[in-house]
């Protein structure tokens, strides 16, 4: 305990001395409130900032800083500008871009938030920033038996890391249950039920950072899809066929010892508290021909509920998943074409579909979305609200001569907030649709011509 306080003091001193690094700041944060939701494996942080311009010139953008350990696990950063009060609040989404700052202390990572209108001298603006971290809850103990509960560490700072001076700030951590083993105490810090409050802290210099560790119980399902390959095949004859290949693992504390099925079934609330056996996938509304299988064959433990706005597929792998266990399976379904394929004003066609993984509350480490365009499509291009790696491939399928163009979109660290629509544009002349029946017609005609030739050819040696 004493050693921890000593390390803390040294770190604080180091960071305070580094504050001399920061250049003259035009902005200062008057009030900051940070709420970090630790209820599931995906850590969601909501930052409400009141930013004031204390310089003489209008400022068009501001920087958000993140420690180097968090930058690696950052899945998404969004910012909104709040105008109006109480009931008449309006939220305006702002542009957020990652940036490199050369004089950053200790390799901090930065994002630039561009204001809707440049902030004049003396003006204040209220911002709400949402950022999502994945793989930030570290299981400790690293291995647990079937009857133990899962405890995790969360490393963060009681003080918000920022390149600006923060006049007043408070941080709240929300845990999923009331069981908190320990949390670093940086006065004033107290805990009430499921909430730990750090603050209010006054007048913190830029780049101040006070590390804290919260050790708490989190039995929410740590469903991590290591790799997901989604193939969306467009057929102009009327349907969109989607095939998803999953490699699922349990990303929490590893399971050690034996698995007792008797204990698991008789004392379900105590046994395997952090394990999960059911998953929910949200599918499009008018879905049909849904199948769920793996290498062995069809898996029958699933329930499909179709609806008007969405369909839900509740499915169970062949066995419950404990820490470190894996399951591989394929889910496929078909949706009508007219729901997703549209004509653009410039005569191009485009597919409007949802990016991301249909499973709820799941992290995908590596997501590949392949859009297979029909034969004869030209000039493919994809439009997405965030950055992905794009590539082109060729796939040979039914009745193909030259092959179908495949637009491959690849993204790492995908969370459910990435389930937004994206578009793939291409040009297609409708006459090319006749290539497929023409191939079949010519095949049948060849058979007839062969029989004609057989009948007409005279193989007699002797003259009649």
């Amino acid at each position: 305990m004493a050693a921890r306080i000593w390390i803390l003091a040294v770190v604080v001193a180091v960071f305070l001395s580094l504050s001399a690094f920061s250049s003259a700041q035009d902005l200062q944060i008057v009030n900051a409130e940070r709420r970090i939701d630790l209820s599931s494996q995906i850590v969601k942080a909501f930052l409400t900032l009141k930013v004031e311009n204390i310089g003489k010139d209008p400022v068009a953008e501001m920087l958000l800083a993140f420690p180097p350990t968090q930058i690696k696990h950052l899945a998404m950063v969004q910012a909104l500008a709040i105008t109006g009060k109480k009931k008449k609040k309006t939220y305006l989404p702002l542009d957020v871009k990652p940036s490199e700052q050369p004089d950053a202390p200790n390799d901090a990572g930065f994002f630039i938030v561009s204001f809707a209108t440049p902030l004049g001298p003396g003006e204040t603006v209220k911002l709400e920033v949402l950022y999502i971290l994945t793989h930030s809850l570290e299981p400790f103990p690293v291995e647990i038996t079937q009857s133990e509960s899962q405890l995790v560490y969360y490393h963060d700072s009681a003080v918000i890391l920022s390149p600006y001076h923060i006049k007043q700030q408070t941080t709240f951590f929300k845990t999923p249950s009331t069981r908190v083993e320990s949390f670093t105490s940086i006065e004033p810090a107290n805990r009430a039920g499921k909430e730990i409050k750090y603050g209010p802290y006054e007048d913190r210099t830029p780049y101040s950072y006070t590390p804290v560790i919260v050790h708490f119980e989190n039995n929410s399902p740590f469903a991590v899809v290591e790799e997901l390959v989604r193939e969306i095949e467009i057929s102009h004859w009327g349907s969109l066929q989607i095939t998803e290949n999953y490699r699922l693992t349990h990303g929490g504390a590893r399971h050690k010892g034996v698995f007792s099925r008797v204990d698991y079934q008789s004392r379900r609330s105590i046994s395997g508290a952090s394990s999960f056996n059911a998953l929910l996938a949200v599918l499009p509304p008018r879905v049909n021909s849904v199948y769920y299988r793996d290498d062995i064959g069809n898996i029958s433990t699933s329930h499909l509920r179709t609806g008007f706005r969405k369909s839900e597929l509740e499915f169970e792998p062949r066995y419950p998943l404990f820490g470190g266990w894996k399951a591989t399976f394929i889910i496929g379904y078909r949706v009508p074409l007219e729901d997703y394929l549209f004509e653009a004003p410039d005569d191009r066609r485009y597919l409007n579909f949802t990016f991301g993984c249909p499973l709820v509350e799941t992290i995908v480490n590596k997501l590949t979305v392949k859009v297979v365009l029909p034969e004869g499509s030209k000039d493919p291009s994809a439009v997405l609200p965030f950055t992905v790696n794009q590539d082109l491939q060729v796939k040979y399928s039914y009745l193909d001569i030259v092959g179908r163009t495949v637009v491959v979109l690849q993204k790492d660290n995908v969370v459910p907030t990435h389930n937004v629509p994206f578009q793939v544009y291409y040009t297609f002349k409708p006459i090319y649709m006749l290539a497929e029946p023409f191939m079949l017609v010519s095949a049948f005609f060849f058979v007839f011509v062969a029989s004609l030739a057989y009948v007409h050819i005279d193989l007699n040696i002797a003259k009649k």
Partner: protein
Amino acid sequence: MAAKPIASPIPVAMYPTLSVFTLAIGLVITAFFFIYEATSSRKNRSLVKELVTAAVASVFLGFGSLFLLLASGVYV
């Protein structure tokens, strides 16, 4: 601005009916073709008649097999 959805040129619900009818007609014309081959003698055969029958039969059979593939779920 509402985007214009693109659908199949032929209503999807009609695929099974269309496939049955086009295949039936195609098979009938195929029957005509082979009956003509079997009953006519070498002198009376007309190549034009044979080729025309073969062409019409293959068109119907080709489209019929396409609709059959689509109706059974293989969206080519």
